[in-house]
């Protein structure tokens, strides 16, 4: 590994977007067979850098060398031709095409334009098997797969090119621990074959686990280049990224007052073919976590409680009053809020400015007789984005121009703004950097202290166990365990999940 020179060198890369210097002279060099991690806060420029590399963006300045030769990646096609394939942060699937077709999009095995369908299926099956996901049907339409499934297809696509360099922009964000393990196994195989990997993640333990070297970006600049992972302590990485010291701080758990009223009451809730018999009570000031594997049905439970899906059985009560099944407006009126799992598809108006996205669920609060007070809206949004450290600051820019992690903060801000009685958070910190993560934990905790009943779903067990007062473990659409969060550890949860699956 050490012997060869860098396969990729990027020097002084500058990329300017209207109003933002997203990259301001970035350097990166990657050697064959290494896993090179890119670290940086939300909005630091990681995704932009890899888009420059993959030909999706054209840099305004800077030089790119591939195998020592200067090159320009004028189109994504050119980058692919050179042997660079990319897993983008935002899922880039075509929902109407099958898994196999998505994997081979743009380079379908074909003779005279006719697709070799058998060949394509076979190759896809092999790839998926290699990744440990032979359960994904190659003929299934990708739009029907859950986010994790789509992410795996996206990885399969990157592998299908047999590239020399594979760029992975937060591939683990939507995956659970098991799937992340599968991914790491694949990465190890690749590097063993001499393929280089650029890996982006906000989960520092992952970087410790697979990374060889780290480059850290801050505000569009390289602040550290090619640090060896093994010898660099986590605290230093965090400091490089944020300029401050941060630890995973889950706010102090405060014991619930004995008379804290039950706010959310779920009784025997069921959704056809997905889950059944789900019951829980969440008291004012309590944070309940739902743990489980991807596909266990946790999101569906939240969405059904919220009325976004019509329950096939059971009841939901808020403050003792029963909610009309299948009606989101009824739930919202009763004071329930849901920060959904997929920010782009389910939450954001990408064309609209940040403030309008934040106030969308609280329009009543900013209006009199239907007329909006925009100044008031802006003020409230500015306060929130400041406290969540959304970058860049301006609340007037279209939310679609924010980095992924910052978009996630905007989604959260929407529900923090609304005075909810019940807050349902689905993967609240997906793609959020370490700094903001602790802010979010603190915010959720302080909301609870103000008497809000919170339900959190997260694929990061550490997060569920650290943030929640009480944990429900979900497997195969059933609640297999319920108890205080501090009386159970990650291994126990995993065991329960496995057992539940086996049962």
């Amino acid at each position: 590994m050490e012997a060869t020179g860098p396969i990729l060198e990027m020097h002084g890369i500058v990329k300017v977007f209207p109003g933002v210097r997203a990259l301001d002279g970035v350097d990166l060099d990657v050697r064959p067979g290494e896993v090179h991690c890119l670290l940086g806060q939300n909005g630091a420029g990681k995704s932009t850098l890899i888009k420059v590399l993959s030909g999706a963006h054209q840099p305004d300045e800077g030089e790119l060398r591939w195998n020592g030769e200067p090159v320009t990646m004028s189109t994504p096609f050119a980058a692919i031709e050179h042997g660079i394939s990319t897993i983008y942060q935002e899922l880039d699937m075509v929902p109407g095409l099958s898994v196999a077709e998505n994997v081979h999009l743009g380079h379908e095995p074909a003779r005279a334009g006719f697709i070799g369908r058998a060949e394509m299926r076979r190759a896809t099956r092999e790839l998926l098997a290699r990744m440990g996901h032979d359960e994904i049907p190659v003929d299934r339409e990708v739009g029907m797969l859950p986010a994790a499934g789509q992410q795996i297809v996206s990885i399969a696509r990157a592998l299908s090119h047999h590239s020399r360099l594979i760029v992975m922009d937060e591939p683990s964000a939507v995956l659970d621990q098991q799937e992340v393990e599968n991914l790491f196994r694949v990465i190890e195989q690749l590097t063993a074959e001499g393929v280089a990997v650029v890996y982006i993640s906000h989960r520092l333990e992952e970087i410790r686990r697979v990374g060889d070297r780290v480059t850290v970006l801050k505000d569009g600049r390289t602040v550290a280049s090619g640090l060896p992972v093994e010898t660099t302590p986590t605290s230093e990485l965090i400091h490089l990224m944020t300029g401050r010291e941060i630890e995973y701080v889950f706010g102090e758990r405060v014991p619930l007052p004995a008379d804290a009223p039950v706010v959310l009451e779920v009784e025997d809730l069921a959704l056809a073919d997905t889950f059944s018999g789900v019951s829980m009570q969440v008291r004012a000031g309590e944070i309940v976590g739902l743990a489980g594997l991807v596909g266990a049905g946790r999101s569906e439970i939240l969405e059904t409680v919220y009325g976004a899906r019509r329950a096939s059985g059971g009841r939901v009560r808020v403050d003792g009053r029963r909610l009309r099944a299948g009606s989101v407006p009824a739930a919202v009126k009763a004071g329930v809020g849901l920060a959904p799992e997929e920010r782009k598809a389910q939450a954001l108006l990408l064309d609209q400015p940040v403030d309008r996205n934040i106030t969308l669920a609280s329009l009543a609060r900013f209006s009199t007789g239907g007329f909006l007070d925009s100044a008031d809206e802006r003020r409230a949004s500015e306060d929130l984005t400041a406290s969540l450290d959304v970058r860049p600051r301006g609340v007037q820019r279209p939310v679609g121009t924010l980095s992924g992690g910052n978009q996630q903060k905007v989604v959260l801000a929407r529900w923090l703004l609304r005075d909810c009685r019940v807050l349902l958070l689905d993967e609240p910190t997906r793609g959020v950097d370490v700094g903001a993560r602790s802010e979010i934990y603190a915010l959720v905790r302080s909301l609870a202290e103000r008497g809000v009943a919170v339900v959190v779903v997260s694929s990061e067990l550490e997060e569920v166990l650290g943030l929640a007062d009480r944990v429900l473990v979900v497997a195969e659409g059933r609640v297999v365990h319920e108890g205080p969060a501090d009386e159970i550890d990650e291994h126990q949860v995993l065991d329960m999940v496995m057992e539940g699956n086996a049962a």
Partner: protein
Amino acid sequence: MSEHSQTTVDDQAGGSPPRTPRARLGLLAGSSVGRNLGLVVALLILCGVGVATAGSQFADVDNMLTILRLASVIGVVSIGMTFVITGGGIDLSVGAIVALASVWATTLATQTLAEDTHWIIIVTTALAVGIGCGLINGLLIAYGGVVPFIATLAMLASARGLAEIIANRRTQIVTDRDFVDFFRGSVLGIPMLVLIFAVVAALGWVLLNRTTFGRRTFAVGGNPEAARLAGINVRRHTVLLYVLLGACCGIAAVMIVARTTTGTSTHGTLYELDAIAAVVIGGTLLAGGRGTVTGTVFGVLIFTTLSNVFTLNNLSSSAQAVAKGVIIVVAVLLQQRFARRSDTRT
């Protein structure tokens, strides 16, 4: 997954080349200043051509009022259409609804009743018909789940057929002079029709940009799923959008009845195309989520001025058609140039 594909991250990138058609849609709508600047320039150039070729004939007050008067009926429909398109829908039935409302408002029965009481009956009837048709459209689309294109295509056929049956394919002439005089009158030199258009446009602007209704319209059109999960009753809102457009068609029917002193099943022919064209050229995104009332007003004026200039120049209708196509394309390219420039300026 697919909706957001419209807004590729690349949109904002000033110089970057590979822009997909969809991405362009986004760019086209650019910043609101830039967008309207382009339209203003297109309109000014058109006026320049008018003055150059037809001189004082073009640039006199009467001619301006003629243009505005011609713009007013389709203008009112286009304002309503702006809402429906911004909200992610489309309505092909507007012309047919105008026809049906004009016919219903001028039947013997209605006119007799109006004579016995007040001409407001005529107006009320037209509005009621427009709102009723809009309601049916909205219900079919929001609750029946019929695709807007198909639902309103069906309404187009049915409403025009019904108009023919009611009118027995005759042109019904309005006898109520008060009605005609009122709507053909002027206030301070501004024709009543133009005034109505101005009021509808102003109200439309406020509604879209300053109220919760408008905000929800953007949300419903931009990402209906997100709107739904934010607690917006997307179905009800969708119904309201079509009802609003129906009401605009009712108003337009009153205006066309007054202007022509007739109600007939042929009124409003091809309004759907004209209105959609005005809305889209104005910068509203056909895919929904972005809309501009000001742009629509410019769109309407551009088309109306165009045919005025053509006529003043005594162009044959075929040559007009060819020129129209070319001018539309040039106007859009121009507008884009401006939109892009102001984009990079932000």
